[in-house]
């Protein structure tokens, strides 16, 4: 690398770096589509309570299973509730829970992974065996067990999801740490007598941050998938709350004559998951990380 390049890199503010990454992401068609979908969903999640035309829990027996019309854009469901209102509100719970869940996963998975990669030896062996064991229990079984025993409140779901989706990040963070651990600047930091904490904070985190962030973005979309599957199976949010997974499972039985009440949440959920996925992909490419050969663990 040329010297003046290094200087330019240092002068940039954090804001400039972030906006540069976003511009690189949006310059690819798939990244642009992904970002637009994600931003659309985020805006919708913020403003939907103010623009929703009807009350999401108002039951009206006279309006059961109405086809889409000018008055009810997406029709009504089996209890006479407006499907449009419920659809635009349906992503809020899922987005909030999975966003904070991913943050928790990112934090504990990332830090534990870095720590294991740095210290190595017996500690590393033991922790990785346990992580492997957790990885080999199907996520759905573990989540269902926790949720059925502890309940489905937000305070249970966020840490539970955060814990279960963090175990894969441990591996990624550990591998990324192994890549930098033998480099000269770490050896010299050790020689200068820096503590493990200082090495992690000043030398390793800046170098593995990108890999962990990309993994976290990917986990977000998988967590959303997992959370909606739980709702779909009846182990997620409880009934009056509008939620896409729950709406699909409720409307499924009647879809032979009221397809609209199942199509609307399907479009909402699929587009959000595809949006996050494409964004995470574009994010990885903008940071120069190749994820295409990784399995979804």
């Amino acid at each position, binding site marked *: 690398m040329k010297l003046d390049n290094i200087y330019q890199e240092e002068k940039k503010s954090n804001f400039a770096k972030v906006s540069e990454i976003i511009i690189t992401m949006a310059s690819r068609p*798939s990244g642009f589509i992904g970002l637009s979908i994600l931003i659309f969903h985020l805006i919708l999640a913020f403003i939907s309570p103010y623009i929703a035309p009807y009350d999401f829990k108002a039951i009206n027996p006279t309006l059961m299973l109405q086809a889409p019309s000018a008055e009810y854009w997406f029709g009504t469901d089996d209890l006479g509730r407006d499907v449009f209102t419920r659809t635009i509100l349906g992503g809020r719970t899922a987005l909030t829970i999975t966003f904070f869940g991913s943050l928790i996963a990112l934090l504990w998975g990332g830090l534990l992974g870095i720590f294991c990669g740095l210290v190595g030896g017996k500690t590393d062996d033991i922790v990785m*065996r*346990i992580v*492997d*064991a*957790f*990885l*080999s*229990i*199907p*996520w*759905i*079984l*573990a989540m*269902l*067990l*926790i949720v*059925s*025993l*502890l309940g489905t409140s937000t305070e249970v779901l966020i840490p539970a999801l955060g814990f279960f989706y963090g175990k894969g990040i441990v591996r990624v963070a550990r591998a990324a740490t192994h890549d930098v651990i033998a480099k000269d600047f770490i050896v010299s930091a050790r020689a200068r007598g820096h503590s493990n904490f200082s090495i992690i904070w000043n030398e390793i985190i800046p170098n593995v941050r990108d890999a962990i962030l990309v993994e976290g973005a990917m986990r977000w*979309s998988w967590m959303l*998938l*997992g959370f*909606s*599957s739980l709702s*779909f*199976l009846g*182990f997620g949010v409880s009934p009056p709350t509008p939620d896409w*997974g729950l709406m*699909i*499972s409720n409307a*499924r039985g009647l*879809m*032979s004559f009221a*397809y609209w009440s*199942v199509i609307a949440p*399907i479009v909402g*959920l*699929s587009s959000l*998951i*595809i949006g996050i*996925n*494409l964004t995470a992909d574009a994010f990885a490419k903008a940071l120069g990380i*190749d994820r*295409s*050969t*990784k*399995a*979804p*663990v």
Partner: protein
Amino acid sequence: MLFLIIKRILLGLITLFIVSLITFVGTEILPGDACTTYLERQAFGEQLEACYIRLGLNVPAYERYVSWAVNAIKGDFGYSLSGEMPIKEVLGPRIKNSLVLASAAIFIGIPIALILGIVTALWRDKLPDVAISTVTIFAMTIPEFISATLLILIIAIWLEWLPGIVIVPTDVSFLELLPNIILPVIAIAMIMTAHMARMVRSSVIQVMASEYVQMAILKGVPYWKMVFKHVLPNALLPAINVVALTIAWLLGGVVVTEVVFNYPGLGRLVIESISNRDLPTVQALAIILASIYVSINLLADLMTLMLNPRLKTLQIRK
């Protein structure tokens, strides 16, 4: 070589041992035990005592773990709470049904994934690649329950080609099961194929860019001969491990798919036993599903080891 295989098998066994500890400790520390959850409001006094004695819950936890583990190795998982039946008998037909579903999906999925992956890699960024890659992104990101629901809506309800919901008893013969499993197989195979096709694609692209392939092109080796003799053997080998991980990951998705189609397999048993708070069955299922995961990975590692002469002398990848 032999040492590596033995080491790998031992590591797998250790993982299973930790899984058994986790599920046992997990069901132990979570509030409530098999008896209180099963008896619910009647969980006090004599009934509770009787239940503890019947299930052997009156002895210390470590003793219970040891006796449970010893019996589990013999294939005896005790009795299920709701059915009052040996878990072994409940599991048998379910495992068979799930195996039918999974192996059909794998046998259909792998060849299609190979073809799609190779085609998209060789015509990279051209029309076939863009078209197929768009479809695979959709297929792999959309949740299983959505693709399954859409399949039922379009093929079973609107077109009326196939039955949408499986309504057969658990122990049905294979031929009777056949028309019922087409849609579930498509639903599972779709996601799996999409994942694998993407991995094959990037693997082939990597090999195509390597120096020896450039060399072969410069030496004038015919294109297809080069693809089949030099590129594919090297590109597909690392894909084995990733394919195994994908299949193992799909165990979770199979649960959801089985519920959507009402398919009498292991997946629906997971939901049923959790809804009924049948903890002994849940423990047995956790161990069985984890064993499947571990053995698929073990098999993939061993296959890579056998097929790749270079790895025979190196330490096996973790």
